[in-house]
């Protein structure tokens, strides 16, 4: 049981700073070895979690949700009203999406998602977050200089567009619904899903379907 003793945790961190191996791989190896040695985890379960987030759960889920919303106005309505229920229709409900909100890009609004305090992310629908999302540069700048950040991603935002940054400070998670590209009227849901990039669902991509 934890005592929720922050002072003790700080001391442990200082101790570990000088007593753990200097390489990340060796530190994590030491952690797994101890946990297995003590009978606290089963390494095959770790294998299964890695497989789940490598093969099964990833941004293709989000892309499917967006493509369906583009194709089916009723689904789109349900998604905007109650995203967890709508994504559960596709079996995608899971970690960090129980209180998901979908925020919609329009001609005059662009949405961008960040977590400045840690790296909150809607795992079950987007998979593991990209490295830049978890890095200090993005976390520090997205709220203060979103247009500069977007420019680094190659996204130019016109003056007529309002940028709305969502800082994930609570247990709500945000998924950006990008705009459906022009000229895709005849496309199937599968074809549409191919157009939806992971970055567009975080907000660091805007105009889809261009080469």
């Amino acid at each position, binding site marked *: 049981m934890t005592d929720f003793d922050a002072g003790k945790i700080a001391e*442990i961190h200082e101790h*570990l700073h000088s007593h753990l191996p200097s390489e990340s791989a060796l530190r994590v190896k030491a952690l797994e070895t*101890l946990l297995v040695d003590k009978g606290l985890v089963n390494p095959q379960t770790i294998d*299964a979690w890695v497989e789940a987030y490598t093969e099964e759960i990833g941004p293709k889920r989000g892309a499917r949700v967006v493509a369906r919303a583009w194709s089916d106005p009723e689904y789109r309505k349900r998604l905007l009203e109650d995203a967890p229920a709508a994504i559960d229709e596709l079996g995608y409900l899971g970690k960090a999406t129980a209180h998901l909100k979908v925020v919609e890009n329009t001609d005059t609004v662009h949405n961008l998602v960040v977590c400045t305090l840690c790296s909150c992310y809607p795992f079950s629908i987007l998979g593991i977050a990209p490295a830049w999302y*978890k890095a200090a540069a993005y976390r520090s700048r997205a709220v203060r200089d979103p247009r500069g950040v977007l420019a680094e991603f190659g996204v130019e935002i016109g003056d007529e567009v309002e940028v*709305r940054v969502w800082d994930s400070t609570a247990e709500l998670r945000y998924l950006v619904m990008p705009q459906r590209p022009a000229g895709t009227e005849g496309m199937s849901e599968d074809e549409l899903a191919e157009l939806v990039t992971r970055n567009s669902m975080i907000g660091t991509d805007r105009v889809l379907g261009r080469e």
Partner: protein
Amino acid sequence: MDGIHDLGGKQGYGPIEVNDDGDPFHEEWEGREWGIAQCARTPGITIDWWRHCRELIMPIDYLGRPYFDSWAQTDFSTYIEAGWMTLEEVAGGKGGTDDAAHGEPPAAMTLQQVLQEDHDHAHRFDGDIDAAPAFSVGQRVVTASHGHAGHTRLPQYARGRTGTVQAYNGAHVFPDLSAQGIEVHQHCYNVVFAASELWPEASGSKDKVCLDLWESYLSEA
């Protein structure tokens, strides 16, 4: 706490590494750590306590080590504090001679089982409370000008600033107390701030920043 983790608006962190190949894990140990964090949680732990333990990592390590390495560091600290392992065992790289600590390992879970657990882990943090919400959508609110030494989810950049309630989120577990093991619900709102209220560079901008904030962070403007 006003820790190194509170990065919003801080300057000097350089350009963003925008190129990413889309792989979930770039080194094997990253996947192992992800898996460990999914299946090895000490009893009584809360997400807010875990986050606070991560915030307490020495700043040089917080900034200097890869992301999932900071998860491993956080796990180590929670396991040691909760008595799952000792500093000596960690330094030595293996469990001690205390046989009692060596239990039967949990049964292996299959891919289907972890996918099911992932689905079942869709935990909501809102709940019913008696008190009525103090603020309503459209109301102007001002945020607290001080934080505190513990875990809190009102970032420094949004302290002492005036915004507008744009949504009511329900009563959510209050992180400042949850990080101390106390689960109470408190009304939580989405508050929108003009970028110009937050940043000196944003004068004249129409951009906005939206945060989910608990009632005790807010006062009537």
